[in-house]
């Protein structure tokens, strides 16, 4: 027979572990809190449209991940999406005339922010804004434009 005290301690640990597991499920698996790794600096980019970009999505240069999307909000005067990009601290030499665009990984994949570095000698510092941005492509709009341009061309002469 195991001693009562041992049993009580074991049950206490068990209940704590069970509640801890529920807590992990609530916090980490569903989205009660957003977690961020705050080792690095933050850049800001304003997009006309971010599509279905999500907090935590990768930020990459030439396909290499250099940071994550930290926060997505809206600018109250221009009604553009304001995306805060958390860049890892080892990438401090991103040129000031870098362009940012929202792209999609694969056909059905998630959206991410791609940075295309320019040739400026000055580097972006914490809190700077990336001026050149390209919004996410919305498939319906592209199809609409395509149909519209086809219609304008008129019936094809064959």
């Amino acid at each position, binding site marked *: 027979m*195991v001693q*009562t005290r041992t*049993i*009580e301690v*074991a*049950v206490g*640990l*068990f*209940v704590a*572990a*069970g*509640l*801890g*597991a*529920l807590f*992990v*499920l*609530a916090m*980490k*698996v*569903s*989205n*009660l809190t*957003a*977690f961020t790794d705050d080792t690095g600096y933050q850049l800001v980019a304003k997009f006309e449209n971010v599509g279905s970009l*999500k*907090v*935590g*999505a*990768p930020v990459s240069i030439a396909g290499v*991940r250099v940071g*994550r999307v930290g926060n997505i909000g809206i600018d109250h005067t221009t009604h553009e999406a304001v995306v805060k990009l958390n860049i890892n601290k080892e990438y401090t030499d991103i040129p000031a005339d870098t362009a940012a665009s929202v792209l999609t*990984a*694969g*056909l*059905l*994949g*998630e959206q991410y922010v791609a940075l295309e570095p320019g040739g400026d000698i000055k580097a972006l510092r914490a809190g700077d804004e990336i001026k050149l941005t390209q919004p996410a492509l919305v498939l319906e709009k592209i199809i609409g434009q395509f149909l519209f341009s086809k219609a304008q061309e008129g019936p094809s002469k064959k």
Partner: protein
Amino acid sequence: MINRLQTLGRWGLIRFERLGRGSMFLMQVLAGLPALLLRPRLTLQQVYATGVLSLVIIIVSGLFVGMVLGLQGYNTLVDFGAEESLGVLVALSLVRELGPVIAALLFAGRAGSALTAEIGLMKATEQLSAMEMMAVDPLARVVAPRLLGGFIAMPLLAAMFSAVGVFGGYFVGVGLLGVDDGSFWSQMQAKVNLQEDIMNGVIKSVVFGFVVTWIAVFEGYDAVPTSEGISRATTRTVVNSSLAVLGLDFVMTALMFGGF
């Protein structure tokens, strides 16, 4: 023809009688629950026996189920270039279905069978009758703490199973197969809903815990007090509670996610 019909009728009557006896038994046990509050130690001991001692099998199976999900899910999703959705797949399948169901099946095999054998042996060695002689109600003293202990332990075990499974899937998906770390979690967090997915999973595990322990203690209490009777009762516990878990799972899934 008439004889066949009679056999069927007798079979049905026996089933209904058992169901009725089980329900009456449950009512009597529930009536014994308030007295338990005076002796929390009895319940504590049962939480230890059913919960803490089942921890190893639950955690190890959870880890492996999560890892297999990660592996299989990745192989399917990678064809569509959607391997970032691996987190969603692993988390939803664990939290909604596999966590509660597999944990309940393991619980029935690991803890339910032990409960039946224990109570059945108490009956066979006339310990229960001896208690009645001493004016101690065996339902309140022996059965009620076991029912309550299993009822408390099962949801906690299921939650641990799911949490460990998610990390197993994370380990395989992110650690071995190279899915992006942030996408794994952010897609999961975007798609898994606290109320709809996690709460419904918890509700399932609570119901399973109740049903499995009820079947286990009833089969033990109702066992024919011989060694053969106890072995049959133990088998029936595992079979019946597994069937009950899977059947109830379908019903609850239809009610929760079926959109009726």
